[in-house]
């Protein structure tokens, strides 16, 4: 069993599906509701399979922050216009294989958009490093 993070960026689907690049604020309210209901459905399915660990959404309003010097306030930058660099949210799963992690990510990516068509957005799949190596040498 290994844990994976399924990262949702603000990245649309492939070019052959131009419809699915339509920003969400141009969807109908019903299409938005259907999309959100599907996300909940994915979490429910993963929970029922004993694979769900966590799901969170992030506000797009973010700021970059860094240390400057002793006694000086932190340096801030942003927010940035390029939304494809931002993370919209994530799902954390605990699954038997990397193949299963990809299957779950593809399921998440099949979420409906305009006209109920799958938006086919890119999902970044990242394995977690374990904290400890196995007990044996």
């Amino acid at each position, binding site marked *: 069993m290994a844990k994976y993070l399924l990262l949702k960026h603000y990245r649309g689907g492939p070019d052959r599906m131009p419809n699915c690049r339509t920003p969400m604020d141009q969807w109908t309210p019903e299409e938005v509701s259907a999309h959100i209901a599907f996300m909940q459905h994915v979490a429910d399915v993963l929970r029922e399979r004993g694979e769900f660990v*966590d799901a969170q959404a992030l506000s797009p309003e973010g700021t970059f922050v860094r240390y400057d010097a002793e006694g000086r306030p932190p340096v801030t930058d942003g927010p940035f216009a390029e939304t494809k660099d931002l993370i919209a949210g994530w799902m954390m799963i*605990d699954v038997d294989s990397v193949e299963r992690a990809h299957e779950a990510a593809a399921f998440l990516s099949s979420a409906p958009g305009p006209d109920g068509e799958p938006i086919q957005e890119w999902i970044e799949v990242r394995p977690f*490093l374990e904290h400890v190596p196995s*007990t044996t040498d």
Partner: protein
Amino acid sequence: MTDVEALVRDLVPQVLGVLVRRGGDFAAAEDAVQEALLEAVRRWPDDPPEDPKAWLVTVAWRKLLDAGRSETARRAREERVHDEPGPGPAEPHDDTLLVLFLCCHPSLTPASAVALTLRAVGGLTTRQIADAYLVPEATMAQRISRAKRTVAREGVGTPGDLGPVLKVLYLIFNEGYSGDVDLAAEAIRLTRGLAASTAEPEVAGLLALMLLHHARRAARWSADGSLVPLAEQDRSLWDTGTIAEGVGILQTALACDRLGEYQAQAAIAALHCDAASAEETDWPQVLEWYDELLTLTDSPVVALNRVVALAEVDGPLVGLRELASVPDTVPRHTAVEAWLHERAGDTATAADLYLRAAAAAGNIAERDHLTKTAARLRGSRP
């Protein structure tokens, strides 16, 4: 853990086994045993029973019948209402083995078998198992209940092949400890129980292997929490009592003359434990055992570890030649390659490879160790 908890946890698989043999549906019986356990923990401190196992069987059986949750349980009740055993002593037969076979059913995924074994054989709560594997309790509850449904559907079959059982126990052992449950110690406890009910030398071999690794646990971590490789461990921290026990169990197993992979691995671990310093390791014998292990398993992981032993015996260049025949997809392949180049004196190549190995490491402790090794070889900045 209280005395009562320790006692009931030893009895869990035996009680569950009795219920299943009496015709109880596995999933419902497991629930009933868990409920009986809770009642035991509540009532025994003030009112200890004369025969704890009989008490648990009686209470769990009553809960199973009361629940009537499954068709099988209802059928069993109708059929058995006349010949239900009285509250006398329970069957002396130990059903741990039967329950272990069910929990490690080949149709289950490894993760499901591990979770079910820890609950139905180990007597841990779902919360404890969830904490140990860092998932929400609701997720672990689903994992266990799916596993129980699979087992109930597949049935007992003909238990006989211990292979899947030993694999599950070894997986639990390898998880070490996280949360408040020491899974390595738990795996040792369960394997001890299994070893007591079967004379199969591979069971003893696995128990010996676990003990020999467990004995070195205190030396595997430095004070700042970083990983200490075998060659650099402070051997005075090794637990000599546990080593002696492991070696004794292994010798008895080997005397049966039915070698298996766990006995061979334990033999290698015993040779390491036997060396007062890394330099005194009997590498030729370690290599012989790797040859045995390779013929038993044909595993590329074993082939990779064998390369290390070979290099210790015949030198790093022989090791590098042999490494070429091991698929480079095997985890730690790059780390071994780095170590061989370091041994051969090519520190620049070794440092590059250690960095690559660090990037491919599956856990934080190993990654940090490999990164530090690369940094040490590079030396300080000019």
